[in-house]
């Protein structure tokens, strides 16, 4: 029987013939950790008596959850992170203002390539699957990888999703990515890698693929990746040093399931509280008043998202009731948005533009919400408390729907503003 992308990657890095279900100790070629966890892993390593990392050159640390220190405690933590990075000799350190969102800029900068094996602290590292890498989040067990170079992994099965059809007018990839996790359901993807392919993939750019790779982790997938194609190689040319070899699944690979999924989801989609897979068409929730709107996070903070929002905002102003925050994903995205005049358009419409990174989605430490308020945003999760208050309602949607809602002061169908 042939092998899936995941089995091929794990076979290469372990040097063994790996099949789904095998217990392996694969050594990652990149390890990413974000600002808020650095102090914790340092403490854990100190307790274990570990004075040097297994391979500091594989480690990338970024300041994205709280790039602008908004309290004295945050400034102290940032200082401590810089000291820890220096102590362990970690050279790939992207401090505030240097990269942006750690699930996005490493792809832009060419640190991630098809067939690469990555492990990380944070769950949405699965974004790296946008260029065909296998990226697995470990939470606190990343400490073992830092100390010993690997941790045990049960090689996951793969659910293959073949994308078909075309986006319907007024919808975007985020609408598809959100509805997909609702339609697939947690049980079917539990502990599997979601692998995208199919004829419609060619119509989706690398930024859109980040979004497709972002949502399935929230229903219990082990990881998510896209079968690399010509677009992948075009995107990586000039970013990655050296040759790039696409790794694809064999035709007779043993998938857990093969699913066809049509990009035409009919209308913009909205995830309603309290989980990202509670998804309905926008028409079901249109008219609900909102106080807070936000475009950003690792799920949707690329140039395409900002353009979609700008298209709605052009000639409009943010509703008086609404605080509207735009957080470009990376320094590169922010600079490009400036060049295109998007930042000026947002500023003139009454939006706040924040430092690239996670934005409010990182627990609402920056630009959060108060009790009784309602937010609609492009963040990753809508659990109670995600934006600070435990008593706020959070809706998730694509950038166009969020922008339309910010203008309308209530959840709105962006197609009504585009006519």
């Amino acid at each position, binding site marked *: 029987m042939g092998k899936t992308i995941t089995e091929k990657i794990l076979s290469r890095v372990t040097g063994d013939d790996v099949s789904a279900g*095998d*217990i392996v*100790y694969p050594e990652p070629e990149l390890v990413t950790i974000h600002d808020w966890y650095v102090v914790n892993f340092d403490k854990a390593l100190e307790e*274990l*008596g*570990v004075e040097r990392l*297994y391979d500091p050159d594989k480690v990338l640390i970024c300041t994205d959850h709280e790039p602008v220190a908004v309290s004295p405690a945050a400034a102290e933590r940032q200082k401590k992170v810089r000291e820890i990075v220096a102590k362990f000799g970690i050279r790939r350190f992207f401090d505030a203002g240097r990269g942006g969102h750690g699930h996005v800029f490493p792809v832009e900068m060419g640190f991630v390539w098809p067939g690469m094996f990555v492990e990380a602290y944070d769950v949405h590292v699965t974004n790296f699957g946008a260029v065909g890498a296998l990226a697995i989040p470990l939470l606190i*067990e990343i*400490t*073992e990888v830092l*100390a*010993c*170079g*690997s941790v*045990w992994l*049960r090689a996951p099965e793969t659910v293959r999703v073949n994308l078909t059809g075309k986006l319907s007018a007024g919808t975007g990839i985020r609408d598809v990515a959100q509805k997909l996790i609702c339609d697939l359901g947690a049980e079917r993807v*539990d*502990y599997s890698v979601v692998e995208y392919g199919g004829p419609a993939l060619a119509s989706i750019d690398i930024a859109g693929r980040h979004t497709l790779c972002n949502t399935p982790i929230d229903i*219990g997938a*082990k990881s998510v990746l896209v079968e690399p194609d010509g677009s992948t190689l075009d995107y990586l040319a000039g970013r990655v040093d050296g040759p790039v070899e696409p790794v694809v699944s064999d035709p007779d690979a043993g998938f857990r399931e093969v699913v066809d999924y049509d990009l035409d989801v009919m209308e913009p989609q909205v995830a309603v509280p309290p989980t990202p897979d509670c998804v309905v068409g926008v028409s079901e929730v249109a008219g609900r008043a909102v106080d807070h709107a936000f475009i950003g996070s690792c799920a949707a903070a690329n140039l395409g998202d900002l353009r979609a929002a700008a298209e709605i905002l052009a000639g409009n102003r943010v509703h008086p009731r609404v605080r509207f925050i735009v957080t470009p994903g990376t320094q590169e995205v922010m600079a490009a948005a400036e060049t295109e005049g998007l930042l000026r358009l947002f500023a003139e419409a009454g939006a706040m533009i924040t430092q690239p990174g996670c934005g409010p989605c990182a627990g609402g430490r920056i630009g959060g919400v108060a009790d009784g308020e309602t937010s609609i945003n492009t963040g990753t999760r809508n659990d109670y408390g995600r934006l600070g208050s435990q008593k706020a309602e959070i809706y998730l949607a694509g950038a166009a729907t969020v922008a339309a809602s910010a203008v309308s002061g209530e959840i709105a169908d962006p197609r009504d503003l585009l006519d």
Partner: protein
Amino acid sequence: MNWTYRGKCWKFGDNLGIDGDVMPLRFALERELDPAVLRDWLMTGIDPDFPRKVSPGDIIVAGRRFGQGNPHIQGFLGIVGHGLGLVAETIPRGSFRNAINAGLPFLSGCAGVTGDVETGDDLEVDFRTGAFHNLTRNLSRRFPPLDARLQAIVEAGGWRPNLERRLARLRAGGSVVA
């Protein structure tokens, strides 16, 4: 380490929640990791007297999706605290990992096992080989044992002791793979 458990069967059904059924959620929120504390609260969501009824070597036999929910390790540490074994029809992925990391000898993927036992039966289970005997009913089954690399982690005592063992090997210049 002794991998063969001989003791009384404690049978449970499907979908036991790791939070609430197996262990009160508050211990996860308090990040309590001491098996000697957690043992006194094991399964009290279902049977408040459970911690006083069981003896070391007894075996919990459960149905599908044992330990479902937000994966917290405390329930498995509570089982370890009593010296019990676990045989389940299935265990969801997060809890499977926690069971290994708690250093618990267990079998997962034991289809139909709850049909072979009743609470109070005398069981003997070899967790190294997967050999399962219901001595009360004179019935034997063979279930898939844990992978040898996972048995090594359980044998070491779970995540922390296994990590310390790997570090010691690393410092000695040896292989760090279990």
